[in-house]
């Protein structure tokens, strides 16, 4: 059984190779502020450029907060990331969902960037802890999440 994956696409002006490069090597520059998981603001978000590479953020003091790992590194067309942040936004090496990025050339220049986050049913695994921590101090993102869910009410 599976929950339908999350799919988003955006078109950018850059060619696939450049789009791939910006996506991977400039993560700290484009990732929205407050949408990361470390306790302190990030100064770097790193996806090591090879299969098996780590995916993490680093704060100004050098503390690394792990997000997951690189499952496939295939520039300029494809990047497969393992998202290992569970439903509490905590890194869990035993938890993994896949985020697949593809970079396809568009006629006339530019790239169609497609994101697919799948295996979402796996988030259910630690949901009890997740619910229990609702009253505790969650990182920013989870607070956003709670706010967002409430707004849906």
């Amino acid at each position, binding site marked *: 059984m599976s929950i339908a994956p*999350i799919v988003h696409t955006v078109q*950018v*002006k850059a060619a696939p190779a450049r*789009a791939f490069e*910006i996506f991977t090597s400039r993560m700290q520059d484009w*990732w*929205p502020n407050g949408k990361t998981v470390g306790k302190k603001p990030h100064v770097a978000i790193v996806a090591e450029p090879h299969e098996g590479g780590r995916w993490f953020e680093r704060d100004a003091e050098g503390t690394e907060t792990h997000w997951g790992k690189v499952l496939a590194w295939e520039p300029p067309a494809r990047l497969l990331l393992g998202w290992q942040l569970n439903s509490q936004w905590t890194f869990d090496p035993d938890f993994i969902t896949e985020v697949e990025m593809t970079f396809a050339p568009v006629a006339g220049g530019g790239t169609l960037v497609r994101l697919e986050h799948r295996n*979402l049913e796996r988030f*259910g695994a630690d949901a009890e802890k997740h619910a229990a921590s609702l009253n505790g101090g969650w990182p920013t993102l989870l607070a956003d999440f709670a706010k967002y869910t409430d707004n849906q*009410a």
Partner: protein
Amino acid sequence: MAKHYTATESLAALGDPTRRAIFERVATRPSAVGDLARGLPVSRPAVSQHLKVLKEAGLVTETPEGTRRIYRLDPRGIAAMRDWLDQYWSTALHAFAAFADEQAESKEEKPK
């Protein structure tokens, strides 16, 4: 009155391993309580109880078919659970596109 289902409620309902197993079975194929109990090491009343929780969380619905009640996935609870992550990625990807285009433009302007 239409009940609203929150992501938190849905995730909490799936926290129990047996309940998750039941949910996964229902997802594979709409089933009656008896069908579900046969494939799992839990009693029929226990399965009924889990189904009740899943139903309250908006994850399954029941429809009567003759003398049986058939359980199937309820898209509402699942939708709530996905929504927040969906929003997250939408924000992140658009931020990426804006940044990438900004880079492309500044590069184009340089030769002036």
